[in-house]
């Protein structure tokens, strides 16, 4: 297992390198630079700025500078936020994103799996209809519609929850976590339901039933593990897509997290900030997929590393 994990981590280095290179090239090719403003800067000022950020060097040298800094753990200076390094911007934003995203992820797994199991075991019951409705609702209605409605109802009409000047307190966390959970539960619940129904119809479950085992034992001991496999498979991509969701939710709920940095970084052509965040997301993706693969092995006895 250890050698497998090490191999995977080493194997991820070229992947991350390719991602950085592609992103670097794409940023270079995007029209409009970090210093394009409504008021055009004078040639003197532009020359000074380009010298400060090494933009007057050939592109391969700029890339070399960047990689060298990266190897030393330095994501560089932000082009837009002159007072901050990308390291400190990311370090400040990460706790917010991880708290919101992580809490939502945990809640969605617990709620999604439980709802999925209940729906699968009680097909065509009220719970089942509810899960199906939730699944369709969460997939069909985008977060940028649900979010503002939540804000309108809970913050403005009912004045039950605060809005703006976000802080990591339960009152502020409720809405964004609820929104992200709702979206993820929609996916996970539907998937768990479908998967468990399929497993429950397989031969080995029929055998278990024929042996007279109680339903509780059949589900917990025999059906749950194989039924969880597809759910675990989507957890990796789902965790990464939470970053994409964060772009929307963080803007909506004014959360000072990574998603908002990414949006502003792209708008401002803040090359170093965008690259830094891409590195972060790439590393996270590799990490999540690794964790998923390890969980896989514990669930499916046929898989051994």
């Amino acid at each position, binding site marked *: 297992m250890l050698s497998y994990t090490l191999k995977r981590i080493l194997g991820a280095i070229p992947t991350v390198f390719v991602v950085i290179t592609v992103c670097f090239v794409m940023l270079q090719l*995007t*029209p*409009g*630079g970090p*210093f*394009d*403003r*409504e*008021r*055009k*800067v*004078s*040639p*003197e*000022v532009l*020359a*000074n*700025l380009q*010298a*400060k950020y090494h933009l007057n060097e050939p592109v391969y040298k700029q890339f070399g500078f960047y990689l060298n800094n990266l190897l030393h753990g330095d994501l560089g200076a932000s082009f*837009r*936020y*002159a*007072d*901050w390094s990308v390291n400190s*911007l990311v370090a*400040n*934003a990460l706790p917010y994103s991880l708290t919101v995203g992580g809490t939502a992820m945990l809640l969605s797994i617990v709620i999604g799996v439980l709802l999925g199991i209940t729906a699968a075991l009680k097909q065509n019951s009220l719970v089942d209809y509810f899960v199906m409705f939730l699944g369709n609702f969460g997939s069909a209605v985008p977060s940028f519609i649900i979010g*503002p409605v939540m*804000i*309108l109802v809970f*913050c*403005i009409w009912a*004045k039950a929850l*605060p*809005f*703006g*000047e*976000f*802080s990591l307190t339960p009152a502020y966390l409720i809405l964004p976590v609820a929104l992200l959970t709702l979206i993820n539960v929609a996916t996970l619940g539907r998937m768990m339901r479908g998967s468990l129904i399929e497993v429950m119809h397989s031969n080995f479950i029929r055998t278990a039933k024929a042996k007279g085992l109680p339903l509780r034992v059949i589900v917990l001991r025999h059906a749950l593990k194989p039924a969880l496999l597809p759910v675990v498979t989507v957890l990796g991509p789902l965790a990464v897509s939470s970053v994409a969701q964060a772009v929307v939710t963080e*803007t*909506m709920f*004014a959360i*000072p*997290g990574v998603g*908002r*940095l990414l949006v*502003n970084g792209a*708008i*401002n*052509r803040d090359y170093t900030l965008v690259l830094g965040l891409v590195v972060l997301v790439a590393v996270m993706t590799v990490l999540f997929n690794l964790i998923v693969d390890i969980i896989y092995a514990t669930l499916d006895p046929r898989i051994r590393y």
Partner: protein
Amino acid sequence: MKQQRMLSVLAASVALALALPATQAAAGEKMAANATLVRGNGAEVESLDISQIESQPAINVGDDLYEGLTTRDTHSRILPGVAESWKQTGPTTWVFHLRKDAKWSNGDAITAADFVFSWQRTVDPKTATQYGIFFEFVKNGKAIMGGKQPVTDLGIKAVDAHTLEITTETPTAFLPDMLANPQMAPLHKASFEKFGKDYTKPGNLVSNGAYRLKEWVVNSRLVLEKNPYYWNAKNVQIAKVVYNPTESEESVLKMYQAGQLDSVDRTPPGMYQKLVSDSPKEMHNNRILGLYYFSLNNQDAVMKDKRVRQALSMVIDRDILTQKVLGEGQVPMYGLIVPGTAGAAVSSYDWSKWPMAKRVAAAKALLAQAGYNAGHPLAIKLSYNTSDLHKKVSLFLLSEWKSKLGVSGSMENQEFKVFLKTRHDGNYQIARNGWSVDYNDATSFLDLVRCGSDQNDLKYCNKKVDALISQGDQTINPAKRAGFMTSAAKLAMEDYPMIPLFQYTYPRMVKPWVRGWNVPNPMDHYKTQFLSIVQH
């Protein structure tokens, strides 16, 4: 002439008395004790370093943290700041006398040397300031930023600890106005040298404005507290200011409605009419010194024909555009200089008074002369950056041209930075544009039409216009100077290099307990020290 040169010291005590927060409560009202003002501030500030402040959000915070030789109240009046008086001693020389009781937020005294240090550091090419426009007016500023002269050649000299002599490139009547901006403030040398790039962080920053920095969480909040060492602290009523950076105008409005903000930086486009009828007392619609216009590429194969440019401008009904399409109190514009701008008179096209039918007939005749008719209609392409406002205006323009002149047009929208590059490079035919002044003088607008100016996206050049601007620049007599500038603007607009549409307004919401949020405030600076909060 000499008397005119000796432009007088501002007798500002009367104006200052008017601006005192203490006078802002109505009968029966009491000022709130320990008041906090929470301001919606648009985007996150890019920097609190005075050499890097550039955007409106950063200027708002900078206005509270820093004070220049002069300051500006919420009527846009220029008042004494760190300097208690000043005098223009020659066409390009000024002497400023600093007040003896001016102090930094750590209690150190402010001296003339602090200004010299600050300005020299900003123009140093190594500092790479993003916003050097003000320093281009100071003697040798442009050359120093271009690396051609040492920073010590900059036109600022400490005569003694409390006297500064400033030399400008050309006679610059608006110098006191420019000096009120945070970019022109002094810099606390000791803390800057100790902390370097981190000098702006909470705990490190030593500033000289009415407020000092307490907390700064990027994308979350920026908290300022009253600076007890500020020379005019006794007239500062609000104890704490919180700046909230939220880009989405919709989110900001929701925060305001939820009671989390005391002011909204800008209400979402298209909501003005509803908001003003729901809460008329909370709506403050400020007309700023800004012009919304469409650039015409004067070197484009089609647009280089003046008759085409004139015809396109003539048929746009600005009244319908401002009243029906936009409805945010914008003022229709038929010239380059907007009302309220110092240093030139507002001029309008004669045809702006004509009935629309006559304008359309004249425009049709011009197009016919240029060789366009029903069989050979004019086809144009219009570019704008993605935004509801610009889309609305672009659609309106195309429909006006189609219905009145039979012009067929296409629209292209681009992401903001892509669009800026397109426009700066002149790769367009007709493009959305807007300009608000950095300092209150007509030359800020005339920069748009000067040959080869950085801001001239129009690719327009008329040597006669440039000659008039240069003459004006060298003239000290304000009336004569304004005459040259007015003629220059008028002459340029007779060439129809652009299509002026309206003067910008900023509709904002401010809670009724906040006082001193005056409109009109043409320069649109709202320093918290001139605001107050009554008990509520």
